């Protein structure tokens, strides 16, 4: 494989930036939702569960359109952010938001599975030994759930790298700003001499995605077989 041109490296770098920001931004939300779904019994739980999974089954173009409605110039959230001097429209931050929304279900799923696998009786034991709720969380729950949390982060990152439909709908396809790997490949396939470059970028995509899947599977296996899992065997989050 021939080396990438500076322009192509720029596309890869933008994709990595969008992927990392999307994943890190989605992480606290995903963790809170996973905790809510795994540990708290409340009315409307089924509805929250369904809403979290919605981006997974909704046509991405619909998710992108919903983001446009909400975060566009006339949307309520967009209006609010504009007052703070933040615009997401046609910006890479908007691409990160779209990617985060699309990655959220996968991340919630992986983290929730790992939280559900933590034996609450171990937390009870920690409490009787003098640990308050927060210390118990930090020293028992979180370390035991960590492989699943990491797997969720890797999966979320990989999903963000591949985001296409919601991104192109929400923030369009602007080179250097919102044109991530999939969008660049799409554009190249529309141009007469773009095939070779498209192939190069496709190989980069495959390598990144494959690497992420291998890492996340290894982490999920570790959390299932290794430490204090209530369920035996590896758990697949996909």
């Amino acid at each position, binding site marked *: 494989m021939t080396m990438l041109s500076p322009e192509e490296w720029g596309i890869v770098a933008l994709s990595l930036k969008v992927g990392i920001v999307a994943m890190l931004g989605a992480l606290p939300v995903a963790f809170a939702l996973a905790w809510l779904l795994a540990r708290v019994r409340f009315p409307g739980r089924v509805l929250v569960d369904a809403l979290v999974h919605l981006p997974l089954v909704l046509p991405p173009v619909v998710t992108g359109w919903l983001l446009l409605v909400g975060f566009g110039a006339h949307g309520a959230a967009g209006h609010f952010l504009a007052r703070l001097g933040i615009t997401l429209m046609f910006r890479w931050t908007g691409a990160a938001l779209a990617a985060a929304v699309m990655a959220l279900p996968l991340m919630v799923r992986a983290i929730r599975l790992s939280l559900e696998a933590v034996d609450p*009786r*171990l937390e*009870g*034991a*920690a*409490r*009787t*030994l*003098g*640990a*308050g709720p927060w*210390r118990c969380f930090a*020293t*028992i729950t979180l*370390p*035991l759930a960590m492989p699943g949390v990491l797997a969720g982060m890797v999966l979320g990152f990989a999903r963000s790298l591949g985001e296409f439909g919601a991104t192109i709908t929400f923030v369009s396809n602007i080179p250097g700003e919102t044109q991530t790997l999939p969008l660049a490949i799409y554009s190249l396939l529309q141009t007469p001499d773009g095939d070779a470059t498209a192939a190069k970028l496709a190989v980069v995509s495959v390598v990144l995605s494959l690497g992420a899947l291998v890492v996340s599977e290894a982490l999920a296996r570790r959390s299932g077989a*290794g*430490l*204090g899992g209530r369920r035996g065997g590896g758990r697949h989050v996909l």
Partner: protein
Amino acid sequence: MLTRGTRRIVVSFAAQERLVALFGPSGAGKTSVLDAVAGLLRPEAGRIAVAGRVLFDSGSGVNLRPEQRACGYVFQDARLFPHRKVRDNLLYGWRLAPSDRRWMSLEEACAFLGIGHLLDRLPRTLSGGEAQRVAIGRALLSGPRFLAMDEPLASLDAARRDEIMGVIERIRDELALPILYVSHDAAEVERLARRIITISGD
């Protein structure tokens, strides 16, 4: 001491003896009583006091959190933290205990229970008897005001049972720590307990 548990377990007893056994068939709610004493289960109503300290009283609204009760709970399944080595399991409660309640050091606990050689092992590599001794050590090192022991011999073979029973007798006699002991085994209770509270199935 009186507990009315959520599963309509009604228990009432006051005891002065050092080792009090809750005796009864499986499913009678013995573990629920221990959980209520340790603060892991909230009774519907009642009053729990150990060594003159009120842990729970529905009448006056007292309900100490588990971490405030200083109850050294030894679980039936040891319940060691799987991601921490034996040393860190043993010191988990010790590190959290106020210094005036650290009446036992790690070295003393290791000598007392014969577990010094296990310190760098992970719990999953321990045998049942070893794990149970570590669990007892972890409870003792947390500086408890009393122990709650839930069938600590249940998962052990005959030789190990005898060994752990010896340890419990020494806790009772040498450490003079009040122990609330749950078992369904009549011989075990006969040997260890100074006072037996029978809990029936209904």
